[in-house]
């Protein structure tokens, strides 16, 4: 059995919830996908560039991967700086750009890293 006061509180909470229920926002999936694709398209050239730099400098081992994350974070912060105020207009969850596509450019990064590393430091 609940205390009558508790019951009253519960009812009040329910009412508050009902009043607070606003119109759920409607997101167009196509546009979200397009925005995500745009981010990916920006990210791949940047990761290729980063891979090239890492290969030329001659990172090897763990430092190369650390450099990848460094490049990624710089890219994200540039993106966030450019669209500082409007980011929530384009993405339902603006913070998701920081970790959603971490692995997106990794393979191209590794490819160009290996390629330039070999050309400059091995041959």
């Amino acid at each position: 059995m609940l205390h009558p006061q508790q019951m009253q509180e519960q009812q009040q909470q329910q009412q508050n919830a009902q009043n607070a229920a606003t119109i759920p926002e409607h997101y167009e999936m196509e546009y979200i996908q397009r925005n995500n694709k745009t981010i990916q398209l920006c990210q791949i050239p940047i990761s290729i560039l980063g891979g090239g730099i890492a290969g030329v400098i001659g990172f090897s081992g763990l430092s190369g991967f650390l450099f990848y994350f460094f490049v990624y974070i710089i890219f994200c912060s540039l993106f966030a700086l450019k669209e500082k105020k409007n980011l929530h207009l384009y993405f339902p969850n603006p913070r998701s750009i920081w970790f959603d596509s971490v692995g997106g450019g990794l393979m191209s990064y590794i490819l160009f890293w290996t390629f330039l590393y070999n050309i400059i430091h091995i041959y």
Partner: protein
Amino acid sequence: MIEAPIVLDVEIRNWVVIPILIVLFIVSALKLNFSRILQLKSNRDQDVEKTMQMQTINRVRRLTSFYNRIPQKSFFMRKAFLCGTPGATNPKNRGLLSSIAPAQEDSNPMNMMFANSMFTDPSGMTDMLKGNVVHLVPQITMMSWVNHFFSGFVACKLPFFPLTIRFKAFLQRGIELSSLDVSYVSSLSWYFLCWFGSEGINNILLSDNFVSPDTQLFNSQVEPGPPAQQNPIHKIYDGERENIEMIRYDSIMNNIENRFLDNLSKKTSLDLNTLNNLNNSNNNNNNNNNTLTKIQKTKTKSSSSSSSSTNTKRVLYQKPSLK
């Protein structure tokens, strides 16, 4: 054990590493264009009736998910159009979703399955086969090409940390040197690296970056959402009709003015609360009371104000019942 760096021949770079990269890129470009041509061809002979059914299903699904955003009248109009008026004898009034009668009710389920799989599927089957051929055959030929011509020597060195010995047999295929560091790999590994890495480049260079609305429409026609081949169309229609009939209409625009006012009043009441708290704290500081009482005081204040506000809400904002 300190290993001296192995110097690889420049010829390997010129004739193995760079050609593999270029050939992979060219082959993937060809593959993409080829599959596009095949898609266009398969799109041309699509059935008009089937497309209409697909679009009806899409429309019905849109209605079931967004029914509460349109006025009541238009929702019921749509419902009448799709599901028909209840108890209608005239076949014209039975609604769009019950317009398709089950073609032939075969008593034999095996027969039904056979008919569904064989007579509605062939286009899908050939499409799948084409896709497989387009993607698989170049992959296999390239792999055998690389394996046949460029095996037996170290092609490049991976800059990242050496993988465990277990990978040695895979990464150094054709090199029988037990003392060689694992990070030196043969050309097949380089091929795989190129394969995975070039996907991103292909995305940028080969696919159309900016999808204009027209092409979007085109694409949606090319790939209709629901898979039609699995179920006969009248069964899907029946399911959708039941979905619509299950909907208990409730607009989200109900009570919108009150909710708006409620939000406003909440904000103002919050401001009042904070003001009260500030005043209280100021008074307490002046009176040099200890902090405990201060918290209690503010608590009682806020609770009383909130209860009064909820009481007024109960009077003001009652949801109008829909009947």
